[in-house]
């Protein structure tokens, strides 16, 4: 097991080199450069030239890439060209925001998705099955930005129930420890902040969680239908076990493996793909940070952040793979 983990961690190296080359090439392929976006349209050629020189943008690509890689290996994520701030320090604030949002969205997706999927499978072809699966189809097909805007329109503008943007109202004060606001408000027993943060999380959480929720519901349903036909379910029934034990223990644990795969993949995707949601809800997370960096051609920010997201993505997948063993003892890691 330990050997397996170590081997998987070593496999991380080529993956990360690949990711770094890809991001480096892509960001440099887009027209425009940070010097121009910093100086604006009115700058003279000479000013542009000198800033480019100063930022090292005139060096050959291979030199620039080498410099980036060298810094990363030493644990230095670099400084933002635009804000001149340390990227690692910025990520320390942005990452918790994104992770908090992602975990919230995933909990929502997993709980609702699995419960809906199980009920739909147990009551196959019932009205619940039909409605929830039609809902799931809508869920997967719904563009996040549209859903987000509609929610803001209904719940913030019309009903004025939920805040349209941000992580917390400016009137609330919270002593930050971990930068996970929900966690911090629990740790400091600040219930006003907890409530406020929770309300801020609701809409972006739902917007972000809708697609995975729909995928998880559909996956759970089909997997459960498959498992419910198995002989060991008949055995469990023949043993006189209560129905909920047969469904939620005997069937669900077996049906969970493909669902777990989906959860792992979606979790990784959400971490890196919250760009739309974070932009719509002005969520101060990594997605929005990268989005703004791409607009400003802030090369170091884009490169470093994407690398960090890639590491998290691979880690989440590794964790998923390790969790398989819990759900299926037949799996061996070699």
């Amino acid at each position, binding site marked *: 097991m330990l050997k397996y983990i170590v081997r998987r961690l070593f496999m991380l190296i080529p993956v990360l080199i690949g990711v770094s080359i890809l991001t480096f090439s892509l960001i440099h392929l887009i027209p425009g450069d940070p010097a121009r976006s910093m100086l604006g349209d009115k700058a003279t050629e000479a000013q542009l030239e000198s800033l480019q020189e100063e930022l090292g943008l005139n060096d050959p690509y291979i030199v620039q890439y080498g410099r980036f890689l060298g810094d990363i290996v030493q644990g230095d994520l670099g400084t933002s060209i635009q804000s001149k701030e340390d990227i690692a320090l910025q990520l320390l604030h942005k990452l918790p925001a994104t992770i908090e949002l992602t975990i919230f969205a995933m909990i929502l997706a997993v709980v609702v998705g699995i419960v809906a999927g199980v009920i739909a499978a147990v009551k196959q072809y019932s009205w619940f099955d039909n409605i929830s699966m039609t809902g799931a189809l809508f869920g997967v097909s719904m563009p996040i930005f549209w859903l987000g805007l509609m929610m803001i329109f209904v719940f913030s503008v019309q009903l004025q129930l939920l805040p349209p943007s941000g992580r917390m109202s400016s009137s609330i004060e919270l002593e930050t420890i971990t930068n996970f606001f929900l966690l911090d408000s629990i740790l400091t027993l600040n219930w006003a902040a907890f409530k406020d943060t929770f309300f801020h999380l609701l809409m972006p959480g739902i917007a972000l969680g809708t697609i995975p929720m729909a995928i998880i519901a559909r996956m759970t349903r089909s997997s459960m239908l498959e498992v419910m036909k198995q002989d060991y379910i008949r055995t469990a029934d023949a043993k006189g076990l209560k129905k909920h034990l047969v469904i939620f223990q*005997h069937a669900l644990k077996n049906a969970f493996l493909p669902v777990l795969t989906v959860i792992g993949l979606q979790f990784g995707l959400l971490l890196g793909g919250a760009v739309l949601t974070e932009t719509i809800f002005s969520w101060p997370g990594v997605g929005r940070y990268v989005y703004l960096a791409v607009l400003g051609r802030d090369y170091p920010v884009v490169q470093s952040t994407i690398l960090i997201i890639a590491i998290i993505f691979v880690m989440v997948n590794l964790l998923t793979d390790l969790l398989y063993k819990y759900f299926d003892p037949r799996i061996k890691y070699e």
Partner: protein
Amino acid sequence: MTQDTPLLEVKNLHTHFFTKAGVVKAVDGIDFKVNPGETLGIVGESGSGKSITAMSILGLIPSPPGKIVEGEINFKGENLLNKSQKQMRKIRGPEIAMVFQDPMTSLNPVFTVEKQLLETILAHENMSKKQAKERALELLNLVGIPDPENRLKNYPHEFSGGMRQRVMIAIALSCNPSLLIADEPTTALDVTIQAQILELFKRMQKELNMAIVMITHDLGVVSEVCDRVMVMYAGKPAEFSETKHLFKKGKHPYTLGLINSIPKITPDKQKLEAIDGVPPDLRSLPKGCSFAPRCKHVMDSCLSNDPDIREVDDDHFVRCLLYEDSKKAVTT
């Protein structure tokens, strides 16, 4: 309970499946009794309704599409068909337990044997977890699993087929049922293991004094363990008699076909006899006797008349027009 009152009495049971392609009459009017402590064999080809009979008794017919449309299943004098699923769950396990055909797939692969044994015991018996574990160890010992203490922690995939079937039997016996239904318990096992498992059934029955319904397609198994036997064909009983009597004086052409198709070990090679044709489509049974199209002794009347079951000898019943003039018809 005396020998006169049967433990289980199935009367005129009809279990049908309502599919898009038509009504499948999987069980179409069977009657039988099981006395306390005896072993009844139910024999027939695949699709003859043996397993559906067993599932009907336990109330585990998947519905829809399946439905028991007629009949009674009296267990200890109470009709099980009048019971709710909740009441049935209290009967499954402590009263009627079941062992299934394929031990490779009948145990849940993601739970330890301990969990699967304990949950059955805890669901029905008023025991602490510790007591239940002691009971589980006792059961594994009883069914002949070596080193039970360590084996409890194993998962099904860490057991061989024969050992898994022993675990299944231990689970079935865990709440001391008065009736054990074994649905082809040895079919998936190789011959030496088969013999061991049958031996185990016989020993358990003696020790625990329970009745067994042994469902099988193997007349060898029947001769080994059953007191009485019912031969089924296309959802109906074809013949019913004491086991020894059946092997000596079996009358129904289908029974005779089954007996003749057992390979015999003789010095000179003989061609193995087989019953020609295939079992009928249960959605559209032929008019008259359903075995007629495959019967060597078919008569014109067989194609139009569906015979009643008749007692041809003491405690020997046959459903065949060849014996129409025998004693009396016993069922409708």
